[in-house]
Structure formats: C-alpha cells, structure tokens
C-alpha cells in the first residue's frame, strides 16, 4: 500500500553548520523575526495573503479562503518550504459577533524546523465551508471531522465527513459554537433518550475498517452486516 518510507531527520535541510535548536529566550509578545515562508508566500501568491503577524515568536498568516488549499499544497510540496507535518486543524469563534470565524491549520516543517499557522476567515452569515487538506495530509481526516463536529464547518473534499466526538445522530448542533448553550438544547431526559436509542454496535463503517485489508478477519455477523451495504449508525 505504501510507496516505501523515507526517514526525515529534523532540521537536515538547514545544513550541517546550522545552530543546534534551543529554547528561545526573551521572546517578545508582538513582533520579532518572521517566518521566511510568509515572504515566499507573498511572492508566490500575490494578493492571497491578507495579513501576517508574529505573536510570541510564532507566525500567523491569514490567507484568502478560495486559495487556501492551493497555498497549503504549495507549502507542502515546494522544496524551499517542505511543511510535511500537519499538527492541527481547528477553528476559532470569537465572542464579538462581528468577527469572522477562523479556520486554523498548524503546519510544521521538520526539515527546516519552522512552524507556520495558516488561517482563513469565514464571515458570519456566509457558507461555513473550508477546503479539506485531506488529499495533502492524511492526518487531516479526524482533525477535520472533529472540527466539523464541534464547529459545523464543512470541509469540501473530505472523503468521509461525519461527526467524530458526538454520536452521528446528534441533533443539537455544534457544541463549541458561541450560541450553543453549555447544557445543550434539549432537556436531560430527551438527551438521554436520544443517546440510549443509539445502537452501540453499529459504530463501524467500511472506511474505518479499511475493509480491503481487514474484511476477511471480521466476525461473521459483522461481515454479513457490512456486506449488505450497511454503514454506520442506525
């Protein structure tokens, strides 16, 4: 299935005379040295970089929503960038209703020892959509599902966008949104009734089990169940 495995030594692209990594000291709150990838992005994608800032030594770059996928693809592929590790996908909603919701990608370049935070902004009232980077980083799979589950952001291009933390029939909305009541929307008995109605054994989909490899090892009843095309949930 895999095309071989190339070990990556952290920082090897910096050359042998690069300084050994050390914990930075006296990092200013605002400002400081910017990640060189931002200037490269400005050159490569003219007009797509909305703004960039450095906070506590970490660089954040806000980019155009329509070109975000293209930009992350370039950051991953380009030999001068090589952001080969996606450490998180999440979203931020601010208390101020006027402020847009942000979708955040935390990228790490192991060969260059660089960290870059890429953001897009989704104005409230427009479609809650963001491009999926699953085709670039497979680790985005569950991260995007969690983000969809908690914030209701649809990642276009994700192969299997379902709820991850809450059960799939969950009807109350998206728990980390600011307009979501802490205790949920339904009464406790209604929440319990809906939770108990879920079948705890119908939790697997073909995708999760990667049936191509594991199907023969499954117990007979599950084989029958999946063979009829049943996916997950009720």
């Amino acid at each position: 299935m895999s095309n071989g495995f190339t070990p990556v030594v952290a920082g090897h692209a910096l050359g042998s005379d690069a300084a050994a990594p050390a914990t930075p000291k006296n990092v200013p709150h605002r400002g400081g040295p910017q990640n060189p990838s931002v200037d490269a992005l400005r050159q490569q994608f003219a007009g797509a970089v909305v703004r960039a800032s450095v906070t506590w030594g970490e660089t954040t770059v806000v980019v155009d929503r329509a070109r975000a996928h293209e930009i992350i693809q370039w950051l991953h592929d380009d030999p001068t960038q090589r952001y080969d590790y996606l450490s998180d996908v999440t979203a931020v909603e601010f208390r101020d209703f006027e402020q847009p919701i942000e979708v955040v990608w935390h990228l790490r370049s192991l060969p260059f020892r660089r960290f870059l935070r890429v953001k897009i902004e989704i104005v409230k009232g427009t479609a809650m959509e963001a491009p999926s980077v699953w085709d670039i980083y497979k680790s985005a799979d569950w991260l995007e599902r969690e983000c969809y589950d908690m914030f209701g952001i649809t990642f276009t291009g994700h192969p299997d966008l379902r709820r991850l933390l809450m059960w799939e029939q969950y009807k109350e909305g998206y728990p980390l949104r600011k307009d979501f009541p802490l205790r949920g929307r339904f009464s406790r008995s209604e929440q319990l009734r809906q939770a108990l109605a879920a079948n705890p054994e119908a939790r697997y989909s073909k995708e999760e089990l990667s049936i191509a490899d594991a199907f023969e090892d499954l117990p007979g009843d599950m084989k029958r169940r999946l063979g009829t095309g049943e996916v997950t949930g009720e």
Partner: protein
Amino acid sequence: MGLSPRPEPNLIETTGNEPWITTKLDAFVNWGRKNSLWPMPFGTACCAIEFMATAASKYDLARFGMERQAFSPRQADLLICAGRVPFKLAPVLRRIWQQMPQPKWCISMGACASSGGMFDNYAVVQGIDSIIPVDVYVPGCPPRPEGLLYGIMMLQRKVGAERSSDKSLRNEMEPDPKSQLYIAPSVIDEVSEPFGNSVHQTRSGL
C-alpha cells in the same frame, strides 16, 4: 514411612460426633455472595486510577473477597462505574449492565458517576442512575480507596440483608420501551435541574 495409610473414604465410620450447625438458607447464601463479589471495573476517568490503587497491594481489595476482577460483564456480579459517563457511552453502559447475569449489583464511584459532578454540560450523563439501577453511591472527587472500601462494605451489608422470599429482588428491570428509560423523564429533568439559571447559559452570554 511413619504415615498411617489414607483411609478409604467410603469406609469412614460416622461416629455421630461430627460438628454441625444450622442456619437460615438466606444467611448462608448471602454470606457466600457478599464475600465473593466479582467486580467489573467500568473505569472512564481518574476514579479508575483510584480504583486501581484500591485493588493493588496497599489497600488490597482481595481482603473483601474480590480477588478476581472480571473484565467480562458475563462473569461479574458487581459493576463499579468509576468516572464520568458521556452520553455517547450511555448505551454502552446500559448494554454492559444488561449482559451481567443475576444476581448483580452496581456501585457508582465518585461525584461524576453519581451526579455528573462538575461536568454539568451538554456531553455528560447527570448520574448513571438515569441509565442503570445503582446500589451504592460513593462520594468523592475521586474517592480515596478507603472511601471505596467503605462503599463496598456497605454493599456487603446490603447483600447480607437480602431475603430470598423477596422475589422482586432478582427481577430484571425492563426500561420503558418508548423512552428506553428506567425512570420517568419528568423525574430525570427534575433531579438534573440546574443550580441558578444555567439552563439558558451560553459561553458568550449572547
């Protein structure tokens, strides 16, 4: 060899002097049951760590007849629910309880299992007694091993006081087919009433 030959068991003569006692069947059965409970730990959070301490050598659960931890509900008669139970786990816990054969008991260990604890939010069941019947509630966050042992001893007293003439004891409770709940929805809503007005609470105050 200096040893007397082993007597043939069928040829032992009864002299009429063997000691014997009489007791109530209940007392005898309950004595056996309460001193050989097989607990199944259903550990979901930090209470499970405290449960492990209880089972380990310093506090030694085995002193109370619980040498064998059952990790299959089918071979257990005591469910110890240690930790918070999210709604997503509610049908799982219910299924595990239904898989346990009678006689069976349940200890709700810690504040979260007993009442939801500090997790008065959208994701956590406000007390497992809304899913399964509970015999003993152990308070604490998490309870110390002594607390759990005290709860277990309370349960042993409860087991010791059972009467076999009470046929309802071993009746399997059937949940209401419509709501799948053991107790009425209005009761659940009432006991999980919020403190203050937090039912309309949002993070932003919007």
